[in-house]
């Protein structure tokens, strides 16, 4: 539809002015052919678009909606490129106009097809690259295949007209989501937005625009410095973002790592997973470097109480946050494996084991971060002697940590159920003539192991954890029940957050279905060899549900 139409980023006035001029001409033609015969007059400078005057109105409309689509699409792209998201509202309006023009194009298809100059169309009209089904004038869509060498790679097949329209509809839908984003300055919410956006499987153009929006001139949305983002994410007080510690070279490198992470999260999930795996070591290294740098500048952090020095508080918060982020990246790496269908069922046990150990560390670091943040704000508002009493009396595990706990229960339950199936039913074994489960473990988790995430996690510890799993063990059953219980309790905490409520509902469904399956397997599994067990992702894209059927 827009074959090679060059659009320059910063004001391609020639493009717009040409579109305006042609639109003006065709609009006048449309007006003229709509006028009643008695009032119609010949306008010398307007030529009909085609020879059948009865169809002229339809053809004018068809051309106009195409011209207007291009104009609005151009405006969408240029508005979205404005710095700091300033053009997003206007871009949304142009998106709506684009979608309206696309609808008009679809409506024009019947007229154009019935009255095409190329005669009766044969079967295969669905593959045609124009609405009328005729070859585009002055353009040969197969030219590149004729000029290419007669060896692979072959020519790429162009999208049919219908598919091209659908492509733009999808693209505009994705761009609209970006334009509706509130530019939330909270880092976790920005992460969440980008991760959730990937569920729409956005195209390269949409992903490029979200990357452009997130990071501009080394700042989040072009507004917040990375150090300010980190301070806020690490639950430091507002004033911390102005501290001179940001001039430290290692702290600046941390900012760069964060920019890289945000950019990686905007890439296609296949590439994203590979890159996330590779940066794990960078995040581990930066933690060690930060610790050394802080120690060099401010002395031994661990032996000095936090209250004595604001700098030491910042260091401690940042270090905990870096660890939390590292485990978040590791978790994302593992979960993406399910989305990309990289794991076979015989590997689910080890994958859920690894997810389980990573989630435990993530929950630990998140909890520590929140406690440090609460500690800071409590000490501000209370006298020192009341602090200890308050911590003991009022303390509740934060909802964010409890949510992670739900996932820990589900991962543990799945791991143990799969291990029991392997140990008792000999199902889903990882065997082959050339290697064993150990080699598969090494390959799948090589990058995590290289980064020591977590420390001491190994194939040995995986086998030790799962070697004695049996259906009869009650703790397995309690895992799914515990997940349901905690998820239910959390509903109150997220009553104003429909997305979180939906997430809790998914957890409950996964836990419930697996509980039922586990109960069935515990009672019948060993007695009924005809039972067929499969794992399906019907309620959650990362946490499977066991389906038990009679074969």
């Amino acid at each position, binding site marked *: 539809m827009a074959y090679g139409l060059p659009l320059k980023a910063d004001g391609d006035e020639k493009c717009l002015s040409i579109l305006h001029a042609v639109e003006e001409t065709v609009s006048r033609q449309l007006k003229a052919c709509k006028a009643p015969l008695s009032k119609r007059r010949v306008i010398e400078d307007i030529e009909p678009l085609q020879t059948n005057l009865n169809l002229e109105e339809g053809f004018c409309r068809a051309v106009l909606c195409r011209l207007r689509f291009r104009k609005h699409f151009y405006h969408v792209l240029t508005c979205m490129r404005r710095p700091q998201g300033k053009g997003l509202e206007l871009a949304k309006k142009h998106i709506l106009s684009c979608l309206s023009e696309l609808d008009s194009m679809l409506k024009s298809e019947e007229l154009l097809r019935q009255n095409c100059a190329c005669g009766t169309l044969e079967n295969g009209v669905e593959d045609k690259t124009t609405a009328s089904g005729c070859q585009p004038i002055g353009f040969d869509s197969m030219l590149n295949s004729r000029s290419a060498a007669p060896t692979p790679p072959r020519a790429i097949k162009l999208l049919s007209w219908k598919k091209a329209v659908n492509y733009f509809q999808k693209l505009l839908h994705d761009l609209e989501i970006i334009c509706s984003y509130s530019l939330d300055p909270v880092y976790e919410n920005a992460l969440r937005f980008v991760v959730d956006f990937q569920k729409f499987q956005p195209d390269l153009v949409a992903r490029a625009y979200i990357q452009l929006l997130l990071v501009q001139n080394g700042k989040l949305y072009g507004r917040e410095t990375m150090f300010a983002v980190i301070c806020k994410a690490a639950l430091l007080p507002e004033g911390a973002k102005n501290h001179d510690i940001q001039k430290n070279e290692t702290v600046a490198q941390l900012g760069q790592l964060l920019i890289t992470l945000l950019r990686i999260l905007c890439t296609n999930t296949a590439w994203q997973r590979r890159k996330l795996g590779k940066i794990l070591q960078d995040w581990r290294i930066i933690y060690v470097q930060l610790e050394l740098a802080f120690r060099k500048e401010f002395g031994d952090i661990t032996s000095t109480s936090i209250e004595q020095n604001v700098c030491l508080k910042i260091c401690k918060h940042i270090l905990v946050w870096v660890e939390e982020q590292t485990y978040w990246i590791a978790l994302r790496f593992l979960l993406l494996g399910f989305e990309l269908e990289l794991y076979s069922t015989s590997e689910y046990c080890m994958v859920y084991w690894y997810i389980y150990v990573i989630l435990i560390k993530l929950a630990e670091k998140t909890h520590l971060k929140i406690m440090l943040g609460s500690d800071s704000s409590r000490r501000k508002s209370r006298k020192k002697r009341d602090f200890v009493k308050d911590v003991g009396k009022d303390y509740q595990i934060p909802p964010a940590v409890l949510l992670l706990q739900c996932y820990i229960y589900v991962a543990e339950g799945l791991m143990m159920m799969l291990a029991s199936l392997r140990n008792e039913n000999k199902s889903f074994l990882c065997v082959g003539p050339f290697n064993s*489960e150990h080699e598969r473990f090494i390959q799948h988790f090589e990058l995590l192991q290289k980064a020591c995430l977590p420390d001491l996690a190994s194939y040995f510890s995986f086998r030790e954890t799962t070697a004695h799993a049996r259906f009869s063990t009650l703790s397995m059953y309690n895992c799914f029940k515990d997940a349901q219980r905690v998820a239910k309790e959390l509903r109150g905490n997220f009553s104003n957050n429909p997305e979180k409520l939906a997430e809790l509902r998914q957890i409950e469904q996964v836990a419930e279905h697996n509980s039922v399956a586990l109960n069935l397997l515990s009672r019948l599994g060993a007695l009924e060899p005809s039972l067929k067990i499969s794992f399906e992702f019907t309620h959650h894209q990362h946490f499977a549900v066991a389906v038990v059927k009679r074969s």
Partner: protein
Amino acid sequence: MEEGKAEFDPSEIEYVSYGGEHHLPLIMNLVDQELSEPYSIFTYRYFVYLWPNLSFLAFHKGKCVGTVVCKMGDHRHTFRGYIAMLVVLSPYRGRGIATELVTRSIKVMMDSGCEEVTLEAEVTNKGALALYGRLGFIRAKRLFRYYLNGVDAFRLKLLFPRPETNYPESRIATRDEPPGLDDGMPPEENIVP
């Protein structure tokens, strides 16, 4: 295009190593006929001239019904085997011919000191993915829109056991004992000949 399934006993299939130029047209005809992206003769010669011991053909009553073409070499400090083409005529599929062809190539790679074997397969090619999965390949990566028709590919990898990482209870061939009762034999001795 042949229709229906061929009737044969697996013992009737004869497997031979690439023996020379006379085998080249057989391989080319099979691959050109069955695979979506036919190659030039230079591509075939690259593989079979440099690594003739890694290419195998399957014959049924004198007719070539399957072939595998591979190579091996250093790749980023890893000595690695690569499966370039694997084809079996449609009427002969589902009877283990592809498995046997690939297994023979992998054994030669293993004996030649390869540390791993790799290949790419379309994410929609369920048959190939099942075949390689049974042989111990994992899906190491997904390659976005790898093929020109827009389909993604999996990079499949098989890692051979390394002596220094031998976990005592690693098991290679199928066994009936539950984990924890392994006799501690090193992985190499468990490989089915």
